[in-house]
């Protein structure tokens, strides 16, 4: 009797183990780390890639610094798409880069909520008392670092810093704050501002105050499927990929007229 009761149980456990393990074992799957601000274009291109090759692309989004730390701890993954070459340089220094392609500019703009558009018309207006400014945490996300450079170069950092009301961990969190009017202004991605012209007015930041961050795609030396990883990286950089990046407000690197 006891034996009979055991068998279904054992079978069930075995089946469960199989179900859990099997998809991994026969996986034709890429693990991609990507900056949170790049979500829409990277997801859209991943969908295209899957439709063409049948390779499933699993993407983990987060602040660039955050996914960097995740990768450092996990030690596994095929492709890395941070918001800045600052992070791919770090990977390079550790010998983790199999190949690298430059994709698009990840430029900053000063976005001002519609309600305050009359009061904040130039960058120096950020120094006015009472302005609520949102910035990214300089270590956690690519554009947070750019914002820090901009403040330094502006020579107004001392006056503007007291107006920094909040720091965000990803550029999307920051964009939400300024779109909803919870802060008066924020330094966010040009792409996010371009996609939401009804919510924010863009104030130019002098170009000489910062070097524009370039979004790279890195195929990692830890890639388990290097060929598929290279193919996906190529897709991100292809003409078809560029068209998708443009659709979401990004400027592809090579087509840049400067």
């Amino acid at each position, binding site marked *: 009797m006891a034996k009979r009761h055991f068998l279904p149980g054992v079978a069930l456990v075995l089946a469960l183990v199989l179900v859990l393990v099997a998809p991994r074992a026969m996986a034709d799957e890429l693990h991609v780390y990507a900056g949170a601000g790049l979500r829409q274009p990277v997801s859209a291109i991943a969908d295209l890639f899957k439709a063409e090759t049948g390779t499933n692309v699993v993407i983990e989004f987060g602040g660039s610094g955050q996914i960097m730390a995740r990768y450092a701890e996990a030690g596994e993954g095929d492709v890395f798409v941070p918001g800045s070459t600052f992070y791919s340089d770090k990977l390079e220094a550790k010998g983790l880069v199999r190949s690298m392609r430059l994709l698009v500019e990840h430029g900053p703009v000063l976005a001002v909520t519609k309600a305050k558009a009359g009061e904040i018309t130039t960058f120096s207006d950020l120094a006015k008392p009472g302005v609520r400014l949102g910035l990214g945490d300089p*270590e956690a996300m690519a554009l947070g670092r750019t914002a820090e450079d901009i403040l330094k170069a502006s020579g107004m950092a001392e006056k503007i810093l007291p107006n920094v009301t909040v720091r965000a961990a990803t550029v999307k*969190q920051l964009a939400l704050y300024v779109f909803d009017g919870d802060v008066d202004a924020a330094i966010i991605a040009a792409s996010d501002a371009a996609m939401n012209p009804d919510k924010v007015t863009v104030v130019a930041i002098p170009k000489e105050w910062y070097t524009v961050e370039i979004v790279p795609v890195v195929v990692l030396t830890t890639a388990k499927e290097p060929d598929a990883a290279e193919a996906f990286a190529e897709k991100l950089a292809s003409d078809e990929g560029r068209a998708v990046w443009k659709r979401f407000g990004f400027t592809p690197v090579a087509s840049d007229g400067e």
Partner: protein
Amino acid sequence: MSGRAPRLPIPLDVLLAVPLLIIAAAIGLVILGLGARLTPHELFRALSEAETLFALRLSFSTSLISLALSLLLGVPAAYLLARRRFRGMALVDTLLDLPLVMPPLVAGLGLLFVIGRSSPLPPLAEIGAVFLFSPAGMVLAQTFIATTIIVRSAKAAFEAVDPGYRDVAGTLGLTPARVFFAIDLPLAAGGIVSGAILAWARALGEFGATLMVAGATRFRTETLPMAIYLNMATGEVEVAVACALVLLVTAFALLLMMRGLKRA
């Protein structure tokens, strides 16, 4: 399989011990993993960093204020729910349970939308200006999460008090307020205190709701969980792990305290 009923006890205990061992080992290994990451020297250095100390102070002060507020709100509400029956009570009761299963990040997002500038209730946006992105906002988020736990445990504690005492007190002419303070509250105190300890632990570890309402601003809204998040993001694993260990040790002490109270 050789198990005929009389011989079962020993093999059964052994069988049952295996899952227990697996569970205990898993928890132990997680703690070991965190603890072994740092040498004592590194741990000490990370603990004495200004950022860690700031997070420690802010975590304890905000969570204690939140605890006080949630007791003030939760205990009376629980008493009413435990003692009275009213129309729509099942609905209210279920609504109060919702934050227990709601991801804190969602609670935080909802709070942000309600007190943010584009609030559907504009007067709330005026008040919200005080809370958004400030330690007051952290207290708001933590209180939101902690109050549910207080309501839950205090309600159970009040329900466990034999209604006979209250009836007798009533016939002896005690006012409802005196019945509450002289009978129900003291008899339910044990349950309320252990609920408070749980709620405090939750407030200390609260992250998702705080992140949305108060932001992740270093040295302003940086509690221990926020410090873990930010320092992981920057690769400063030492500070992150030190903060995690402080949280774990505190939580462990709180849970031990709760056991001690239950036994007493």
